[in-house]
């Protein structure tokens, strides 16, 4: 079924296949009661959902023909709709309905499919189907404790092989440090998520695993779109989101895979072809087949108790060639025996996924074939043209792939490169990318390219100079002319004048649209001579426009994110200053006390008959030193409060950690905390913003202090350690002997506004994470075996920032 769905979904010309498959499905419907001469055996299939999910179809496709070869079995199906069931009332109604329905029927076998259906059956069995044997199927029991199946139930367990999937992912992407696990809120989602957590527990410490369970789809998509490069997505199940929206797995997996900034892995073969890279995938057909075998034996008189539960079967390493290519993953690194599907991926697949809908592709294909049919010149000419098209498409595909990869400062370089290559290919003289301000009042040419020997093009063109063109683009329309004279004489009078003045003979300008808003335009102009723009090229340029638009909007989001981070860091600093006041007062008080006492002493000495001038000199020297010490304290505070833009330089983390430790020394005394430093000498430099990293270390130390608030005095130890891990990263660990992290908080300690402290803002660790990640590093939190927690961060070394 999954391949069928993928055909229709991605707009391949599969209409006929679809029709045939649908017919086949319809013909396989339950046999007509008229044919049944003697009472048939009744088998009831219990499904947890109310929808024809691909998994359910796969199971039923396997069970139905195996159970009912001669029409002697009457197969009933009950869709319990447990995804929707949020109250007991609903479950009572379902029970009442089933009891009524089966009161007069002698049921021979129950087949609960998936764990929620099994749980429902076990809970209400005595009431609904007393004494009826059962064969379950596709139920994951890995994370189910204390389940008593009883003596007349057997079945097939759904395997959970997340370990194998993660191992395969780590082999494909050795740089992976983090995994995000996605699941929904339905009973099935929760069951599978628990099983995944059970499987993945042993990766703690190796991969930072975060569970995004039960979020609304919108937020979830935003979140997966912004995942850092060293992350992978593990898709578990999302039949219902937090807002109660229902999905089928392929729908959800497609949405996630399309939005995700990193590869997505999964566990079910039904997800393959919907955007996942692959994994150790389970076949529901196989589940159904094995369950049907057991069912046949039970119907044949064997007691279920004598048939052992089948432990997981039908899994295989399966991957999607298109996805491997999309993410630049090497098939050489796949586990032995992997099945690689979709090997015949076309160029369309390469860039069609995330940038264009199926509709646009169908149109584009139609245009292409029509173009071929009506080609008037000879065969040789047509072939050349085909080659040209192919080159153009390859170029587009490469651009799409490039832009899906690059971020940050690379974007500008790639945009310029793309403009040059497109201009080369189209043989135009100028290519320009214009970005509109967010209020769409002003425009700025952000990137341009001018062919060799051509006059430089204007890089600032007011909206008023080409009002008609801008109005068209803002409406989302493409502007195209071979001669300026084609433009409307009256409405575009100003535009005509401007183009003539600039010497623009022909132009094609494509609006860049993101979610219906025009954020800029891409223009190609011919100056040296007039030229025509063929439809098919314009069509493809529009595709390129979408790629650019996506790239630009992503970059805007990145810049916005960076601004936000700086603000956050500033807020963080100011709020930390409040916490530090006591400590700073102490730090300032010491030199001030010494200065005053020294001055008073010197006055007394001078009042005496015989002043010892050597002593006086020594005292005055001390006064000067203490004054310096006081201004250093103030200087540190000021440097700390400065809200600057990033100023990156090579930073010695040992030195920096030492500095911050001195800054909080007073605070440590106040809180009776002993700070121990284990700072590695001669660490390689980290290319980073010093002030921000001071903030990071400070926040981690203060966090440690807070964690030890309730620890016994004398057992409040904070260990700060720096090290070089030999893989090009410097690590800093902050080890406290406090209360540790609650299990429930482990996944969230770095979330903004997530706090376990009554008086905390929940910003400290969020700031830590955002700063460290902005430096291309990563943070981690874990509990120590001997109590307390260790927060660690790793920062890449070297001169080049990420």
């Amino acid at each position: 079924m999954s391949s069928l769905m993928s055909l229709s979904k991605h707009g391949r010309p599969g209409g006929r296949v679809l029709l045939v498959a649908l017919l086949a499905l319809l013909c396989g419907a339950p046999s007509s009661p008229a044919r049944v001469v003697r009472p048939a055996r009744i088998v009831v299939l219990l499904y947890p959902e109310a929808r024809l999910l691909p998994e359910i179809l796969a199971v039923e496709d396997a069970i139905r023909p195996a159970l009912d070869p001669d029409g002697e079995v009457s197969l009933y199906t009950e869709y319990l709709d447990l995804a929707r069931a949020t109250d007991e009332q609903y479950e009572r109604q379902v029970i009442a309905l089933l009891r009524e329905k089966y009161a007069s029927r002698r049921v021979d076998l129950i087949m609960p499919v998936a764990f929620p259906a099994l749980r429902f059956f076990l809970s209400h069995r005595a009431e609904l189907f007393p004494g009826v044997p059962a064969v379950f199927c596709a139920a994951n029991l890995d994370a189910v404790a204390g389940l008593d199946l009883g003596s007349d139930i057997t079945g097939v367990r759904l395997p959970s092989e997340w370990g194998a999937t993660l191992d395969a992912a780590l082999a494909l992407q050795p740089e992976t440090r983090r995994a995000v696990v996605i699941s929904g809120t339905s009973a099935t989602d929760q069951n599978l998520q628990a099983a995944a957590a059970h499987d993945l527990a042993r990766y703690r410490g190796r991969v930072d695993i975060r569970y995004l369970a039960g979020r609304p789809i919108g937020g979830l998509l935003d979140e997966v779109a912004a995942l850092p490069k060293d992350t992978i997505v593990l898709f578990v199940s999302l039949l219902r989101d937090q807002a109660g929206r229902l999905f089928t797995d392929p729908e959800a997996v497609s949405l996630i895979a399309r939005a995700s900034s990193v590869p997505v892995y999964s566990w079910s073969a039904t997800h393959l072809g919907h955007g996942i890279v692959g994994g150790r995938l389970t076949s529901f057909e196989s589940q159904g087949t094995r369950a049907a075998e057991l069912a046949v034996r039970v119907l044949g008189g064997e007691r279920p108790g004598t048939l052992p539960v089948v432990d997981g079967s039908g899994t295989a390493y399966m991957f999607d060639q298109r996805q491997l290519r999309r993410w630049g993953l090497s098939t050489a690194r796949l586990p032995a025996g992997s099945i690689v599907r979709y090997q015949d991926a076309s160029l369309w697949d390469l860039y069609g996924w995330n940038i264009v809908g199926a509709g646009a592709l169908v149109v584009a294909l139609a245009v292409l074939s029509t173009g071929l049919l009506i080609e008037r010149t000879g065969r040789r000419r047509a072939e050349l043209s085909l080659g040209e098209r192919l080159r153009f498409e390859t170029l587009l595909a490469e651009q799409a792939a490039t832009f899906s990869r690059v971020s940050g400062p690379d974007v500008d370089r790639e945009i310029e490169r793309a403009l040059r290559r497109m201009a080369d290919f189209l043989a135009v003289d100028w290519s320009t990318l214009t970005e509109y301000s967010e209020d769409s009042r002003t425009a700025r040419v952000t990137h341009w390219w001018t062919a060799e020997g051509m006059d430089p093009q204007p890089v600032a063109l007011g909206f008023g100079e080409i009002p008609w063109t801008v109005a068209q683009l803002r409406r989302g329309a493409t502007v195209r002319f071979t001669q300026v004279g084609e433009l409307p004489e009256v409405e575009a009078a100003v535009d005509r004048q401007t183009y003539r003045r600039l010497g623009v003979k022909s132009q094609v300008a494509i609006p860049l649209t993101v979610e219906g808003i025009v954020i800029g335009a891409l223009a190609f102009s011919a100056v040296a001579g007039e030229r025509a723009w063929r439809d098919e090229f314009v069509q493809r340029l529009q595709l390129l426009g979408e790629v650019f638009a996506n790239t630009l909007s992503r970059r805007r989001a990145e810049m916005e994110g960076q601004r936000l981070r700086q603000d956050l860091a500033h807020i963080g600093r100011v709020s930390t200053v409040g916490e530090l006041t006591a400590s700073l007062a102490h730090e300032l008080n010491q030199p001030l006390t010494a200065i005053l006492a020294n001055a008073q002493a010197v006055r007394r000495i001078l009042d005496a008959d015989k002043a010892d001038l050597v002593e006086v000199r020594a005292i005055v020297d001390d006064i000067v030193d203490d004054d310096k010490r006081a201004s250093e304290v103030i200087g540190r505070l000021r440097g700390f409060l400065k809200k600057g833009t990033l100023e990156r330089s090579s930073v010695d983390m040992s030195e920096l950690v030492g500095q911050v430790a001195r800054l909080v020394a007073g605070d440590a005394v106040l809180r009776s905390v002993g700070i121990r430093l284990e700072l590695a000498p001669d660490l390689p430099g980290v290319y980073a913003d010093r002030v921000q990293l001071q903030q990071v270390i400070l926040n981690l130390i203060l966090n440690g202090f807070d964690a030890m608030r309730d620890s016994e005095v004398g057992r409040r130890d904070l260990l700060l350690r720096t090290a070089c891990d030999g893989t090009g990263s410097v690590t800093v660990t902050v080890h406290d002997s406090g209360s540790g992290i609650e299990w429930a908080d482990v996944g969230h300690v770095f979330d903004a506004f997530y706090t376990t402290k009554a008086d905390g803002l929940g910003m400290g660790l969020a700031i830590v994470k955002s700063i460290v990640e902005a430096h291309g590093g990563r943070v981690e939190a874990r509990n120590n075996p001997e109590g307390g927690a260790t927060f660690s961060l790793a920062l890449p070394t070297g001169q080049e920032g990420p």
Partner: protein
Amino acid sequence: MAPTGPVVFVVDDDASVRKSLARLVKAAGYEVEAFASVGDFLARAHFEGPGCLLLDVRMPGQTGLDLQETLRAAERRLSIVFITGHGDVRSSVTAMKGGAVDFLTKPLDEEALLTAIRQAVRRTIDEQAEHGRVTAVRNCVATLTPREAEVFALVVTGMLNKQIGAQLGIGEKTVKVHRARVMEKMQAGSLAQLVRLAGTGGMIAARA
């Protein structure tokens, strides 16, 4: 070692503060000894002369309040002037309840500091003198026989010899002899003086 004048012991972990305070106190005419920690001070030989402690409240390791407790437990009489970077109510209350002379906030006002030191030194001297008196009386009490001690305890409550004899089951004459011995051993010239001595030595017994 026989110090000529009162000694002020400065205990502060901050080197600049310690040094400058020592200078000021010295310039004001006191002998000064400075220590970087409570441990260093305790390692010094017992000091029984006139003087006082100028003590920082918060220090790594044992705090000033810990030292105050240690000295009290050891019945060492050395008055304390506390100094602190920030006056927090709780520790100042603890310090004053523990018998501190003053609790001063850094930076220190010269007059307040020297006044506090003067008072502290005076109190140390008074307490040491008081302790000397008590010790003397206790030494005298220690020379009394059990019977004399009984008689002493009853005499100072104002009982007549006759009543004392009746209570102890001995003759009035015997009481008289014991009483004379008590007056002699306690070096008391009058009954009033004997009663005062009994108060000093903590000897006033409740009437049975």
